């Protein structure tokens, strides 16, 4: 059913669908994200609890920050009662990859849309929501993002709060199984285009290999995973851009200037 989405008619249909339809579609795509978030947030809740957060504080931290690694890093700082400066720096480093995602999204927004939507879309820049936004053809309808966020964000926050209350009660087998849901989603985003494009296929394979190698290398391996992701993304996407230029060919965006 997904491959059907790649035909020309549906690309056009996508551009012309209503905001309500976009919201609905986003909500639907946000369901697997929300379920995965709920499971991961449980584990995060356990960390939040040991940092001294109560369930309400955990809920608020999660609904406002929407960042797994970033929040986890932040909670360890809170647990140590380290300086406010330190939590700012750690949050910046752990979340810096969102700068790249936000930059990519800035190119997908219809200039005819209200500027305010950019603030709304920014709220929901997460690895997973960015992944499904990537699959949207043409301009990104902001309501698609809101639909996904409307389910995923409360699940993330509720999962954190419940994790603080009862994180240790969830069976390990279930946590282990649910923990791969988000990776499964990433695969569903990157593999279908790789099938149709040898450059992307090669790039995905090289990224897997480089990421594995980097996690094993003595110097890079000890970096935080957030820093490693940025470093690898900048290097690999940069090399690919030099070797295989792929300037955007969207006809509609060309005239908007």
């Amino acid at each position, binding site marked *: 059913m997904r491959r059907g989405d790649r035909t020309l008619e549906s690309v056009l249909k996508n551009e012309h669908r209503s905001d309500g339809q976009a919201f609905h579609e986003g909500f639907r795509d946000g369901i697997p994200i929300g379920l995965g978030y709920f499971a991961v947030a449980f584990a995060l809740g356990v960390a939040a609890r040991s940092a001294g957060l109560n369930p309400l504080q955990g809920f608020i931290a999660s609904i406002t920050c929407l960042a797994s690694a970033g929040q986890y890093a932040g909670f360890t700082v809170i647990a140590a009662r380290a300086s406010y400066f330190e939590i700012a720096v750690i949050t910046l480093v752990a979340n810096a990859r969102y700068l790249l995602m936000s*930059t*990519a999204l800035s190119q997908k927004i219809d*200039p005819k849309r209200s500027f305010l939507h950019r603030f709304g879309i*920014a*709220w929901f820049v997460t*690895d997973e929501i960015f992944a499904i936004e990537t699959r949207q053809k043409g301009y990104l309808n902001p309501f698609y993002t809101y639909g996904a966020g409307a389910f995923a964000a409360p699940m993330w926050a509720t999962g954190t709060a419940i994790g603080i209350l009862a994180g240790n009660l969830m069976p390990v087998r279930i946590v282990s199984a649910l923990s791969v849901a988000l990776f499964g989603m990433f695969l569903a*985003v990157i593999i279908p285009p790789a099938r149709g494009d040898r450059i992307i296929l090669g*790039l995905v394979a090289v990224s897997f290999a480089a990421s594995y190698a980097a996690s094993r290398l003595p110097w890079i391996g000890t970096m935080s995973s957030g820093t490693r992701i940025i470093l690898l993304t900048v290097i690999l*996407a940069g090399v690919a851009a030099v070797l295989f230029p792929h300037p955007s060919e969207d006809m509609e965006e060309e005239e908007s*200037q």
Partner: protein
Amino acid sequence: MNRNINLYILIMFAVSYTIRALPLTLIRGKIRSPFLQSFLYYVPYVTLAVMTFPAIIQSTQTPLSGLIALIAGVIAAWFGASLFQVASLCCVVVLIAEFIIL
């Protein structure tokens, strides 16, 4: 030291939101450079691939169950399974694999 948890959370929020909002609001026009266009085109594939592996084999109870989920997910996605189907398949595969292995 006596520090306020709510203030920590506020700082976390301010920093995370600023990082996300700055490029979206500052870059309003179309990026013209062919290099940057190509770079941004490749960013999602690289960044999602890098986040998936090897993390997927480190998140499960045993690396093997994560590896099987990775292979199953790649095959399912290759043959056109939807987002939800791939995500659920990976979970089920881990659950079954760990019942057998552990």
